């Protein structure tokens, strides 16, 4: 159990081992560990952030959907109103058109009537005159037919 120079050798070996691990082993490992810690921290915060943005996006999406629904309802309502308007308008137009057609027709009818009456009156006059001429031509009896002709003439006059 004697102390000897082995001590010195062991001390030197110890010093070399310390030097090596201080220089080459410890820094690499702690760097790796710290870097990984940083990565994990970043990953966790990124996860948190994405969670938050997911919530935000959901809220946003809900807002957009609601807005879209409102808009759609609006549009439908507008379309309904518009279509009602159009139907009404069409009805009005049709009614006016009908009225116009009717009045046109009536006007035409009355025009035609007047025209026909005039024509008829002319023709009846002619016929009456011809008939009268023929009666007059065969037996001119002014006395016998005078009041007849008179009557005819009055009738024609009256139209």
């Amino acid at each position: 159990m004697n102390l000897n120079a082995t001590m010195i050798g062991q001390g030197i070996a110890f010093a070399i081992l310390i030097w090596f691990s201080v220089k080459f082993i410890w820094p690499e490992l702690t760097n790796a560990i710290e870097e990984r810690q940083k990565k994990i921290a970043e990953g966790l915060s990124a996860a948190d952030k994405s969670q938050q943005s997911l919530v935000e996006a959901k809220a946003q999406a809900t807002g957009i959907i609601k807005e879209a629904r409102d808009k759609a309802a609006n549009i439908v309502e507008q379309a309904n109103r518009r279509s009602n308007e159009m139907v009404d308008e069409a009805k009005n137009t049709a009614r006016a058109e009908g009225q116009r057609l009717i009045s046109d027709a009536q006007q035409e009818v009355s025009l035609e009537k007047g025209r026909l009456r005039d024509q008829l009156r002319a023709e009846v006059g002619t016929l009456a005159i011809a008939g009268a001429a023929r009666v007059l031509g065969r037996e001119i009896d002014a006395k016998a037919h005078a009041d007849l002709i008179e009557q005819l003439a009055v009738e024609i006059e009256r139209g």
Partner: protein
Amino acid sequence: MSTEVTEATQTGTEYINHHLTHWTVGEGFWSYNLDSLIVSAVLGVVGIFLFWLAARKATSGVPGKWQCFVEMCVEFVDGQVKDVFHGDRKFIAPLALTIFVWVFLMNAMDLLPLDLVSTIARFAVGEHAAHHVYFRAVPTADLNTTFGLSLTVLLLVLFFSFKAKGVGGFGHEMITAPFGASPALWLPNLAINIIELCAKPFSLAMRLFGNMYAGELVFMLIALLGATWTGLTLGSGLSMFGQILMGSIWAIFHILIIALQAFIFMVLTVVYIAMAHEHH
């Protein structure tokens, strides 16, 4: 644990003495215990190489299993150092890791079968020559190893004292602490401080050595139980059974001691350096 004492002439005392003799070259102080030197150097190189493998390919991504293990060691040691030492751990922490791993590996040699080397020697160089082969496989059961370590620690303590306080500050502290600055107290202060300074490496070295040496000795005594084998008799059977039982129990218990002593050596070293760092 081969326990057969092949030579009928070898007594228990001789067996133990043989196992407690170092493989030594040289004369007087300038002799070297080659067994301690070789085993500790091999363990140091292997241990540091394995750690270097992890450090070389250390990735901040998904680590391999070995890197994980090494990182666990690193974080464990770093945590221990952080508790004791408040300052830059760039040197102290790897120092502590080196101590822990190296001392642990050297202590672990205690778990090798006691007669492993002598059995190998018997096969390698023959029965008679093997009688002159001395080899103690546990470097930390050699006072030289533990003192080599603890004196290096002492040098580090001195270095850090000088670094933290300057040579003047350190000298001032040596003669004024702990009793006071009065000139009459300089001598007592100095005496106390020198004793304290010497006690640190001494207690470090003796604690580790004592534990490992005692552990080794108990293994030897347990091994002697089986050495009483005289054939298939009841007594031989009982002592063989006793040896196996006690050897197992002691080996399992010793696992704790191996780790504990490495841990204690590491923590005390850090404590001493932390103390050197602090002003009184």
